[in-house]
């Protein structure tokens, strides 16, 4: 009898150890979908009940938005607006909302975000990959067709001048990320990682309750500058290192155009990373803060403080806002970079 009891105790002891080792392996499903859309590689990983079906509807939603906003697809709403010969065009709720947001951010950033820069971008060849350096006179002429203040919006009705072009590329992926996060939440998902070509959108924490560990790519070399440990937010980086070409005289031109000069941005910044609740804010701000340069970007943060950011300068410094500094750890191989905290 006693032997039986002891065996039971020993058995319980062993089983309880096995159980605690398996503590995190709770009943959440995991599902991942990887696909190409919005000119980039997208991956959606979802943890929760019915993860498979939810991840499929996320993919459908992104494809739907891409069809509305493609600049080159002849059936898209943006294409219709850009080929309207100055006539009023009625667009869907999604498109109207995104245009309104882009115009609002253009105003907030004093035109550093410029949703009508497309003709200039095209002249530099960044839309086709056949890069060239346009004549100064050509750029001047093209800049006449640029200006977010010339876009008329009345609810779902959009009107732009003949020869103007609207391009929502700088905000579309962020908006899509927000939409997907919302869709997942409505389906009861509490943990998800959405990677839209390096734009990261995080829903909740990891399934085990810990923060997601997100590497911040070195804009100049291999590896990561550091690691962000965060949850429930979006992170977007902009920099001219992403896409650029070298002209015959050796000058390097990047794909982010300064809407004032019509030339690729060339200031004290290598990259801007924005961390905020909403992906569309991150998307819009990372581009426009990069256009602004260090001083104006820091001034913009002090004025609004509805986001956090990490600036990497050409002089090898990292400027990080106080709200996110505790979530950032510098990579061991980047110890030579000086980290400075941006305070209010």
């Amino acid at each position, binding site marked *: 009898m*006693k*032997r039986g009891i*002891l065996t039971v105790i*020993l058995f319980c002891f062993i089983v309880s150890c096995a159980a605690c080792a398996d503590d995190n392996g709770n009943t959440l499903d995991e599902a991942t979908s990887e696909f190409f859309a919005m000119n980039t590689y997208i991956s959606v990983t979802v943890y929760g009940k019915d993860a498979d079906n939810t991840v499929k509807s996320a993919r459908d939603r992104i494809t739907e938005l891409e069809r509305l906003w493609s600049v080159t697809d002849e059936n898209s709403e943006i294409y219709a607006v850009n080929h309207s010969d100055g006539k009023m065009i009625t667009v869907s709720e999604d498109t109207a909302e995104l245009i309104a947001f882009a115009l609002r951010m253009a105003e907030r950033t004093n035109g550093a975000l410029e949703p009508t820069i497309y003709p200039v971008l095209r002249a530099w060849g960044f839309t086709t990959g056949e890069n060239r350096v346009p004549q100064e006179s050509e750029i001047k002429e093209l800049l006449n067709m640029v200006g977010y203040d010339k876009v008329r919006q009345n609810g779902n009705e959009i009107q732009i001048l003949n020869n103007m072009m609207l391009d929502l590329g700088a905000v579309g992926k962020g908006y899509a990320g927000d939409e997907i996060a919302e869709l997942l939440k409505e389906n009861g998902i509490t943990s998800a*990682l959405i*990677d839209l*070509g*390096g*734009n*990261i959108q995080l829903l909740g924490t*990891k399934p085990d309750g810990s923060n*997601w*560990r*997100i*590497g*911040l*790519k070195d804009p100049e070399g291999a590896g*990561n500058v550091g*690691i*962000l*440990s965060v949850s429930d937010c979006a*992170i*977007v*980086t902009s920099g001219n290192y*992403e896409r650029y070409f070298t002209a015959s005289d050796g000058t390097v031109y990047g794909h982010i155009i300064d809407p004032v000069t019509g030339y690729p941005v060339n200031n004290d910044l290598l990259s801007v*990373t924005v961390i905020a609740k909403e992906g569309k804010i991150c998307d819009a701000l990372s581009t426009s803060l990069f256009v602004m340069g260090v001083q104006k970007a820091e001034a913009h943060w002090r004025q609004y403080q509805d986001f956090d950011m990490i600036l990497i300068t050409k002089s090898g410094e990292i400027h990080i806002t106080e709200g996110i500094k*505790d*979530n950032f*750890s*510098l*990579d*061991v191989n980047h110890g030579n970079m000086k980290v400075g905290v941006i305070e209010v």
Partner: protein
Amino acid sequence: MKNKVLIGICIAIFLIGVIGSALVLFAPHGTKVNIVQDGAVLYTFDLSVTEDQTLEIEYNGRTNIVQIENGKIRVVEADCPDKTCIRMGWLETGSLPIVCLPNHLSIEFADEREDLDAVIK
């Protein structure tokens, strides 16, 4: 009969204990060390390349002085009441960090697999 069973169980428990301690003491670890305060990583060092130095880490007006020497790391001075962190000596295993509870400080080997969830590009 009864005695044999008891002895058998004792040996079993003893062996489990020995194996368990061995696992804890010789848990594999790399050379990267994190100094963590309240869950936030303050510093990360690769002990194989870091020069000898001492660091002062503050918490609510109290300090721990951390020493890195010959590729090893320890707490040499602390104004916490218990001094447990000093008595723990050099950081040796991957499973047992140096902890100073009163000052919310811990020094631990970093997970060598950088297991990132994603990279921002």
